[in-house]
């Protein structure tokens, strides 16, 4: 084949670094794999068994021969290390159609968020089929993917590249946190088991305060949640502890991810990347408008849904910080009157949250036919956020309506679900906020992706 760089690669390999040679031999073997795939395709097509099989096998033999020929140049380089269990994990994490891929690269072309140079997700499909875990874990590209699903809609083989990318992303989370917990968070049984811990913590905390006795009331007989669960003695220490602990895990995971990316980048001849801090500014400002999300064709509407949820979280975080100021500095205790701006911020944020997550839900169903409904990993986060939003708003409404018999239990569920989210952030899809940010900053620091226009 005149244009096949398999041929050229042999000449080039001698001149280039040993690492580069590995790359070349990967390409050659890749060609072999593709040719073999072609054979299967021919048989599957039912129309051309004999001919396609013949052509395919011949191609495979030829390319494989070249792969072997290229191998001596690669002796000093790291050999490829296929990790079969990694492949199995991807398949079990939603990437079950991975092996349908025949490397046509439609996905890379229809993707609007990939860099043009070594685009994703075609190469990731190849790495994933081969179980090249190292190439995929320390790669920014996994998280540059925004799940637009344009690739899924256009894939001629229904190999669902976007879903595979997400399965790999999920494994990144597992790889850079505690694998056992992440694995549990990836299925319903495990999630329910994990949920027992925050439930028990909240129950113990309530029992210790004697809140299971008579219905707690404020001075004027109104519902006051801090009488049920004390702010300074219970909520703040517990939630702060788990929040900060998750923050620490995030920091450790993100640092390791960054270092792995630097190592892979430099090993393939890349220049030393810029620092994290000097590149985070533009990345954050991109988040504020969700510019990148808007590049999606197939699921363009997700941008606004995600934006609402994003700002809801930001708003609720600020509300909490504000309440801390009121409580510890000004000495005001909740509940605050509706005339106080803190209530405005809190309620607007909650409204944005419930509207946003409902939009997420509706859009998912609308897009399901063309791009699938999403994995368990997506749904556990969506449902967690839903429970938090519904119980949070519900607790406020029931408090004002003075339905104590329901208000306190709903509030308890709200506390459990928020604690659940905090505790397992580093293991759930929530971790995407950290890894995606780190990946985007890294891509900017290496010049791989300097932002969307």
């Amino acid at each position, binding site marked *: 084949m005149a244009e096949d760089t398999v041929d050229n690669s042999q000449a080039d390999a001698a001149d280039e670094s040993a690492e580069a040679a590995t790359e070349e031999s990967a390409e050659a073997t890749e060609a072999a794999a593709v040719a073999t795939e072609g054979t299967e*395709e*021919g048989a599957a097509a*039912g129309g051309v068994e004999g001919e*396609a099989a013949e052509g395919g096998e011949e191609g495979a033999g030829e390319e494989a021969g070249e792969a072997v020929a290229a191998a001596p140049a690669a002796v000093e380089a790291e050999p490829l290390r296929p990790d079969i269990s990694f492949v199995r994990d991807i398949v079990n994490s939603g990437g079950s159609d991975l092996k349908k891929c025949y490397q*046509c690269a*439609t996905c890379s072309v229809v993707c609007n968020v990939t860099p*043009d140079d070594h685009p994703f997700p075609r190469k990731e499909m190849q790495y994933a089929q081969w179980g090249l875990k190292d190439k995929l874990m320390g790669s920014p590209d996994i998280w540059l993917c925004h799940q637009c699903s344009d690739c899924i809609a*256009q894939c*001629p083989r229904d190999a669902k590249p976007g879903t595979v990318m997400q399965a790999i992303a999920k494994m990144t989370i597992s790889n850079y946190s505690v694998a056992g917990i992440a694995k549990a968070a990836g299925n319903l049984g495990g999630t329910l088991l994990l949920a027992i811990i925050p439930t028990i913590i909240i129950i113990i905390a309530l029992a210790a305060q004697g809140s299971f006795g008579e219905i707690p009331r404020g001075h004027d007989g109104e519902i006051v949640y801090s009488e049920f669960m004390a702010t300074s003695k219970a909520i703040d220490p517990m939630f702060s502890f788990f929040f900060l602990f998750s923050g620490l895990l995030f920091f450790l995971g993100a640092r390791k991810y960054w270092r792995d990316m630097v190592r892979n980048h430099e090993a393939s001849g890349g220049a030393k990347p810029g620092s994290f801090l000097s590149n985070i500014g533009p990345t954050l400002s991109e988040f504020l408008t969700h510019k990148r999300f808007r590049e999606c064709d197939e699921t363009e509407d997700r941008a606004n849904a995600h934006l609402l949820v994003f700002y809801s979280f930001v708003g609720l975080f600020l509300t909490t910080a504000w309440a801390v100021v009121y409580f510890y500095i000004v000495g005001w205790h909740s509940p605050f009157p509706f005339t106080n701006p803190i209530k405005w911020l809190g309620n607007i944020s909650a409204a944005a949250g419930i509207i946003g997550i409902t939009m997420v839900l509706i859009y998912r169903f609308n897009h399901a036919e063309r791009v699938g409904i999403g994995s368990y990993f997506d749904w556990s986060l969506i449902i967690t956020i839903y429970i938090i939003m519904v119980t949070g708003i519900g607790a406020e409404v029931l408090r004002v309506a003075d339905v104590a018999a329901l208000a306190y239990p709903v509030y308890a569920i709200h506390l459990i679900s928020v604690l659940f989210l905090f505790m397992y952030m580093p293991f759930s899809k929530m971790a995407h906020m950290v890894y995606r940010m780190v990946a985007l900053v890294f891509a900017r620091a290496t010049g791989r992706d300097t932002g969307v226009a």
Partner: protein
Amino acid sequence: MADKDVIVVGGGISGTTAAVEAAEAGLEAVIVEKNPYLGGRVSQLFRYFPKLCPPYCGLEINFRRIRNNPKVSYHTQAVVESVSGAAGDFKVSIRKNPRYVNEKCTSCGECVKVCPVERDNEYNFGLDKTRAIYLPHELAFPMRYVIDMSVCKGSACAECVKVCKYGAIDLEMQPETVEVSAGNVVYATGWNPYDASKIENLNADTIPNVVTNMVMERMAAPNGPTKGAIVRPSDGKEVKKIAFAQCAGSRDRNNLEYCSAVCCMASLKQATYIREKYPEDAEATIFYIDLRAPGKYEDFLRKLQEDEKVTMRKGKVAKIEEDSATGDVIVTLEDVFGSGKVEERFDMVVLATGMEPAAVSDKPASAVLEKNGFIDAGASADGIHAAGVARRPSDVAESVQGATGAALKCMQTVREVSNV
């Protein structure tokens, strides 16, 4: 005893072959062809691969065999409406649509000169027009004019009737339905080019200089709409830089799920058309997923690989845009053996669209179709056979061999039935 041993549905290269092979072995065969001419898709091709000879070589041989053999007959503009009965004695109902021109026609062409109505010429995929009375194409068999009554003004005009010296035109002809009994039915219903506008990401129907491979055949053919000039539909500019987008709609679950089997060879062949037209400076690039040149066809592939003006790049064309200022076509792909997304500009892009079995729209009465619409003769009743692309995607050589096989199957049925 049935009227005929074999009814062949479809008079393309496969159908005519099945009929003459059966007839030459002593069976009575009749061909039912829906077009006003025999020869089917093959007649539309400029050249065959790999020998690059004109398809009329093969077709003429079959037509001569038909003319010389009293055991084979044919109906044009005829469709099978129903099939009942069993092997050895199928009752086949054939609807014969009127041609409005009888056997007295000498193809003198005087009628065309006076016909006031134009119609799109579907034989050339709408690239040119014919009059309402027209010769299907220059080498049509039978060599006889036909009237498209959907546009003809009928007896209110009748200009053609007035100028025809031979009394060959009869605007009052009516359709008729005939019942024929037959021992076997061979479906050789062939294929239609896949509708490229269905390929969501390629915008094929909105960009004039993106054409299908069958349009390319008509453009290259001396009897085609451009008289063999390969020029851009938008502005008539000579095509010097051409791209072939392989698997356009084939091997694609959103379009045709299967490999159409001939498109790789067809594009390689078409690359020779343009290299021959402009040997000095024409450049052809073939963008592929896998190049399939099975068996001896590999020699053909190797020959093209030696031509430095023919480039083959692994990576499917997944986006096509038009530069409206120049009419150029810009394709985007990921060069899988290169390093990234590539945008390249061409004078014209040929989509290597695949073959969709005609049975998908024809819905043959008595055959069992597999999921893609090809006829599964094995699953169909005894005495029902399939040949050519109706059976599976195949090139001309394989279709002809398969048609001979179908003729053999017919002989076996005839023999079994007479032994009972």
